[in-house]
């Protein structure tokens, strides 16, 4: 059977995580490290140790901002940003509850908006997110001024060939 490390390496499809010598440059440069359950380099160690459950159910994978500072500074070109994408996708595929549920709900609302119109409509997307997350009062103070300034358009934008966009979603659904 494939180990957790082998599984992650295969999906990263690049430099294997064994190349990490734990210099901690990724963690030193990570703007979100201090909010994470485990630092980025610790996640690599945990994957090497086969701690799949702890990694995939941690907050770390959802608090990664995808700023790509880690891969930029890694002396061994270990693609930690891609690793975080892989871990999030594994958690989703396995149907695990996201430790930071609203982060995933926001992504889902965003993707629904693309599926709906081919382009994102910020207001509908935000309403959708609020209904999913239950975070009904966040930003209610900002919304009216945005609306008055004409920053929120009422009419959802549309890609004409919507079928081609929806087809992408259908065909890339993970098996």
């Amino acid at each position, binding site marked *: 059977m494939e180990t957790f490390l082998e599984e992650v390496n295969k999906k990263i499809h690049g430099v294997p995580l064994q190349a990490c010598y734990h210099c901690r440059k990724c963690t030193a440069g990570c703007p979100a490290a201090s909010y994470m359950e485990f630092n980025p380099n610790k996640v690599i160690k945990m994957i090497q140790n086969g701690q799949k459950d702890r990694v995939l159910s941690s907050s770390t994978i959802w608090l990664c901002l995808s700023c790509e500072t880690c891969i930029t500074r890694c002396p061994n070109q270990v693609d930690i940003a891609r690793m975080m994408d892989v871990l999030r996708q594994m958690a989703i595929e396995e149907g695990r509850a996201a430790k930071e549920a609203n982060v995933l709900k926001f992504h889902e609302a965003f993707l629904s908006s693309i599926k709906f119109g081919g382009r994102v409509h910020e207001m509908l997307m935000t309403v959708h997110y609020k209904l999913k*997350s239950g975070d009904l009062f966040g930003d209610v103070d*900002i919304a009216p001024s945005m609306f008055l300034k004409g920053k929120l358009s009422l009419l959802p934008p549309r890609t004409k060939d919507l079928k081609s966009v929806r087809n992408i979603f259908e065909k890339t659904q993970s098996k």
Partner: protein
Amino acid sequence: MKVTYYPGCSLHGMGKEYDQSMKAVSRALNIELKEVDDWSCCGASAAHNTNFDLSVALPARNLIAAEKDAMDVMVPCAACFNRFKMAEHHLKADKDLKARIEGVLGAKYQGGIAIRNPIDVIYNEIGMDALAAKVVKPMTGLKPVSYYGCLLLRPPEVCQFENYENPFMLDKIMRTIGADVKNWSYKTDCCGGSLSVSKTPIVTNLCDKLMAAAKEAGANCVVTACPMCMANLEMRPSANMKMPVFYFTELISLALGLPGSQETFKTHLTDPQPLLNQLRLV
């Protein structure tokens, strides 16, 4: 020069000031824009966080549409630019993936056009001499820090932006239009844009750190080329930390005295007009 133009969702929504000023500046600098036919969303953070193939296929649909015009495609939004470059990178590096994505889209990806952001186009194609020659109102008294953020620069071998730890093109553009650009160490630090809605308290801390550093550097405003950074830096800092944030194209438009150049300042969430009035720039 003529380029294909991919505005992306933000530039037709929250970031419309960027779209308006980009078009005005392009006209003035003789960059002819031809919009990508029937474009769709690039998928942004939501796609690459949740589904790799989707995150390549969504931008690939637009790249293939842009290829029909056989010109460089200019992508002002830093997030779209990053997703386009990332898709190009993966499609060129991985033949199996390319075949898979072409199967999804029912079309061939050639990879023959360059993906460019407007900082690069204005700096390298138009040039600072040509820009300087068109300035009618130098931005005297304006002290911006240039904020490049993440998505134009990283990962460096994908984005191919100059000096990814200490870039200077935006600084030079601002200096050319007469602004007193301040040096600072946070040019490429992340503002937390991707978690702006779902983890707001963390993002407020990140934005406060940036604003504090900008103030310490002696800046009276921030200049950006990213609609995510713009929305984030306007909305998320604590009330006492906010300062005006501009798209770099808005300031070029003002310096070139272009018609309608003051209109976009009215829709900012942090009002820049008191600063511009005080400096007699409007």
